[in-house]
């Protein structure tokens, strides 16, 4: 005899994370300790080759100036001195410009761009129609019998972002589950409610030049999730999000 069909509808949802590209700034205590440790290491350290060479050359210069040595050693030496090297390196350093940590997208708070918070995880939120409401959700798609839940989640991702996403799902097990019952009006014998299984994927490349299907998508950090998701949904989602 066939098993009775379950009353729950299954959905697979994909939580697409963009991993942070920069480390977070240090706290005040961390900075103080780092400075202190640097000081201790500096005082405990020995001279390196370059510094010894520099000191020796300074000594020689001083001796030559004071006692007017015959410049016997000068023709044998090459002209490059340690001090010159240091000056050259300093100039090179001054010419180097690091990329800004706070990008334009940060300043304008443009939540649809990936460049925003470079030091925290960003998640993809899409506006989807569930029942008769338009809600902000993690992209989800209904499960079809015969496919694994993970492939459902991959399908959801492909549906919203196109096929060529370089996102990596780490394992086959879902990270979280959210189940809800439909309001009594829609509830039938076969259709009590829905269960949404969450999977996590990491964006390998931050190149999303392919067209996006829906216009309303957002890349949102963890603390901003509360602005968009409903409280119950948010609670379940927060359970599997690391910071």
């Amino acid at each position, binding site marked *: 005899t066939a098993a009775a069909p379950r009353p729950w509808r299954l959905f697979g949802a994909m939580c697409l994370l963009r*991993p*942070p590209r*920069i*480390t977070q700034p240090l706290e005040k205590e961390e900075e103080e300790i780092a400075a202190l440790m640097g000081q201790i290491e500096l005082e405990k350290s020995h001279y390196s080759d370059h510094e010894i060479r520099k000191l020796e050359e300074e000594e020689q210069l001083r001796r030559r100036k004071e006692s007017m040595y015959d410049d016997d050693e000068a023709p044998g030496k090459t002209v490059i001195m340690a001090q010159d090297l240091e000056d*050259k390196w300093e100039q090179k350093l001054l010419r180097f410009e690091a990329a800004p940590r706070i990008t334009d997208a940060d300043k304008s708070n443009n939540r649809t761009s990936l460049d925003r918070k470079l030091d925290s*995880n960003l998640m993809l939120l899409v506006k989807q129609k569930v029942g008769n409401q338009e809600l902000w959700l993690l992209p989800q798609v209904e499960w079809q019998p015969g496919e694994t839940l993970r492939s459902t989640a991959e399908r959801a991702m492909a549906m919203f972002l196109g096929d060529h996403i370089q996102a990596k799902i*780490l*394992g*086959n*097990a879902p*990270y979280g589950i959210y189940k809800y019952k439909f309001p009594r009006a829609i509830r039938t014998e076969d259709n009590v409610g829905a269960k949404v299984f969450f999977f*996590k994927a*990491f964006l390998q490349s931050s190149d999303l030049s392919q067209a996006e299907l829906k216009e309303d998508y957002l890349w949102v950090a963890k603390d901003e999730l509360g602005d968009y998701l409903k409280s119950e949904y948010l609670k379940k989602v927060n359970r599997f999000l*690391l910071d």
Partner: protein
Amino acid sequence: DALVSCHRHYKSRPTHGIGRFKYLLPKEAPKKKKDKVQMKEINVGTEHEYGDVNIQMTSYDMCLVEHFAQYVHKLCNRLSIRVNESYAMPTKTNEVLFLEERGSKMQLDAVLTTHQRVVQISGLSSTFAPILLEIIQSSQPEGVHLLVKEHTEADFKSRLKSRPELEELLAQMN
């Protein structure tokens, strides 16, 4: 006074050898020089456990890499994952030469050393592996490359030195 207060008992004393215990322990087999340890666990299937997994960390900065390797090791200890080995691969030195072509050709050198540390783990269940990977990934320091792969013979052999005389003799035999 200092001579008399020595704790060793002389052979004629009745208490001689009072602290001996090594004869009570079970006999250890003598250590062989060749270690041909090849453990392969059940990988895919009903067991859902990974075999030996290597976590390789490479960087130019030795302190960072070592501290990160220690952090990963301690993390696995705390999560009661068995750590088989934690070793370092030999460092590779790269010399960077600049060829400035403005008048006199000058070559400025920079010497970069690449360090690699490997932590070998076994007994990862497939439900826990993605969580561990995510933790390690998110706590990666700047400038450290992370590579997680399964342990193969090639990895094992890469730690051993090649013996040219042995290979020559083998080639001659064949």
